[in-house]
């Protein structure tokens, strides 16, 4: 998919109030703002506990101008199912039902409900923002935390296991649309969300969202860090539409070109500081092998 939207033709209507409670430099706040623009007014959001719950504000104020139901941590996929079922029962067909959850809420505790929704073919859009840890509770490891990363529950040696490939798991359900995106490329994300709204059935978008306090980098580097993840070939932008895989945007442009070494990405963040040479070497080899297949 080629970028269709540019900063010049991006809708000016905002669905997130300024001055919300996200940290400065938050990758989530970038994609939330752009994603809601793509979804538009006729949208109902379903949100489990996560940084997004906080971003949305504390009662009785809210930073989102769309209807939103906050639900329990494990239940997002099922709750979105319930909203859609109610829309059908109440004959309100023309609404985007959108779950928006963190990586922990999606790939760990919420995977059962999400898997159920995918298997049933529910007509929902599910957006997972991946900041690669449980940030809301103070940076604990999650299934999607990369290997070697220091978190508050992997404080000395870093995480021993590799990152769980959640979009691949969801794609294995055979749903019609799976895409990845990055906060560093918000317009690519915008286009993918927009495209998702034109499709039906379960649609899943996994968006990489750098997190300055959780990843330990300066707030001004969010876009830079996000771009390095893509340009080093670690986090790839792609779409799987009706089973067909294709790289998109910045990742597509990398095919056949030299990539930035992964170590340059690692060096930008304090969370990788206990990585040893052996792991760096292994990750580089894995990335090279993956790209050899593209």
């Amino acid at each position: 998919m080629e970028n269709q939207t540019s900063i010049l033709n991006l809708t000016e209507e905002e669905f997130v109030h300024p001055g919300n409670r996200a940290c400065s430099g938050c990758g989530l706040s970038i994609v939330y703002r752009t994603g809601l623009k793509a979804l538009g007014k006729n949208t109902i959001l379903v949100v489990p506990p996560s940084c997004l719950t906080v971003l949305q504000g504390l009662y009785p104020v809210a930073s989102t101008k769309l209807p939103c139901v906050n639900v329990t941590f494990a239940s997002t996929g099922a709750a979105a199912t319930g909203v859609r079922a109610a829309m059908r029962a109440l004959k309100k067909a023309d609404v985007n039902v959108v779950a928006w959850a963190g990586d922990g809420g999606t790939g760990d505790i919420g995977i059962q409900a999400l898997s159920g929704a995918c298997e049933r073919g529910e007509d929902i859009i599910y957006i997972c923002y991946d900041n690669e840890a449980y940030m809301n509770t103070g940076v604990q490891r999650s299934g999607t935390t990369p290997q070697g990363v220091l978190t508050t529950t992997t404080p000395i040696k870093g995480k021993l296991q590799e990152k769980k490939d959640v979009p691949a798991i969801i794609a294995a359900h055979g749903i019609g649309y799976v895409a990845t995106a990055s906060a560093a490329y918000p317009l690519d994300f915008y286009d993918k969300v927009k495209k998702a709204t034109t499709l039906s059935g379960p649609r899943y978008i996994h968006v990489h969202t750098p997190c300055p306090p959780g990843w330990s980098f300066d707030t001004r580097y969010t876009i830079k860090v996000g771009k390095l993840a893509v340009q080093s070939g670690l986090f790839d932008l792609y779409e799987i539409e009706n089973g067909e895989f294709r790289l998109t945007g910045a990742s597509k442009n990398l095919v056949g070109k030299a990539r930035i070494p992964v170590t340059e990405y690692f060096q930008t963040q304090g969370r990788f500081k206990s990585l040893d040479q052996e792991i760096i070497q292994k990750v580089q080899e894995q990335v090279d092998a993956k790209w050899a297949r593209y």
Partner: protein
Amino acid sequence: MHIIESGNVAAATGVKLSRAQVIAAYPITPQTPLTEKLSEFVESGELAAEYIPVESEHSAMAVCIAASTAGARAFTATSANGLLYMSEQLHWAVGARLPIVMCVANRGIGAPWTVWNDQQDTISQRDVGWIQIYANDHQQIIDAVIKAFRLAQTVSIPVMVCYDGYLLSHTYMPFEEPAQSSVDSFLPTFAPTHFLDPENPGNFNTVTLPDVRPDVEGVIAPGYIEIRHTLHQDLRAALDTFVEIDREFKKEFGRGGNPLIEEYRCEDADFVAVCIGSLSYQLRDVVDGMRENDVKIGVMGVQMYRPFPDEAIVRALAGKKGVIVFEKALSYGNQGALYADIKSALYKSAERPFIHNYILGLGGREIKTQHLLDALTASCTSPDTFEDAPRWIGLKL
């Protein structure tokens, strides 16, 4: 129309007549035939509802919570471990003030596994804030389901309709199926004032602080504790609301009149046997026999357990010589929960009867009429030999 069907089908029929719009459920014995029947109603087109075959009970309640927040009438059903698996969701549903109705075919809890009846599942969930209604026969099941939908949406609190697994869920009894037109006039459509609406967006179940907090216009909004206090007050008020709803139900259908407690031969009784659920009908036989031997004894079934109808119970029991509470559940490490509740209700009354507690029937252990007779006879003839602790009936080892 009179039909002969199982308790589960009575419940399903009540749900159909109540025109539930979104149904989500997960199979568990002995509730399963209820969800099977509902999926049949939906697939055959007899009931215009969305039926979601979820992958777990946690998700069943998630679907109900979301659908109800969006303005649809939602229903689910479960038993035992299924109920406990959705415990977090039970709290969420009530905190969000959603008028969900759920049937629970009561069953014992593992470990060790048991599929048979007792009431530990729902009794253990008594403190979550759901209204709990217990039905004692098939007629009461179908009637309670219809009343439950009306009560739930009147007070914006979810309602559990509980009935004994197997004893009621799987047995066949005749009951009257109300006419759809009568149910329609008794049960107005669900039209919430707040719901998920792109035209009028709101953020539901937001993080709430310990203290009150002004909104953007400076109006002070409640903190968590005020919200929970309101829930508690509304639950207490639901006792009267249910009495009123039951009165209207009686006007429409000719049945009812005992919404909170059901008394049998209690008026002139010296002693009253008390329990929850279908056991109260078995106790009636025992009491009839004892009456023939001039023991003035009656039975009281507690129909609504939460909110607790303490005033009605005190009215029924104060001045009696003795109260004997039979329970198929207990607060482990303490006593029967109902026993403790009744003792506490009677504390404020001037004429306090003696009160005894029997635990029985756990995991479906057969309750023999002789056991009940022996227990009641012991309580009535030598009350002073009892300690303030439950005695267990029917143990074989």
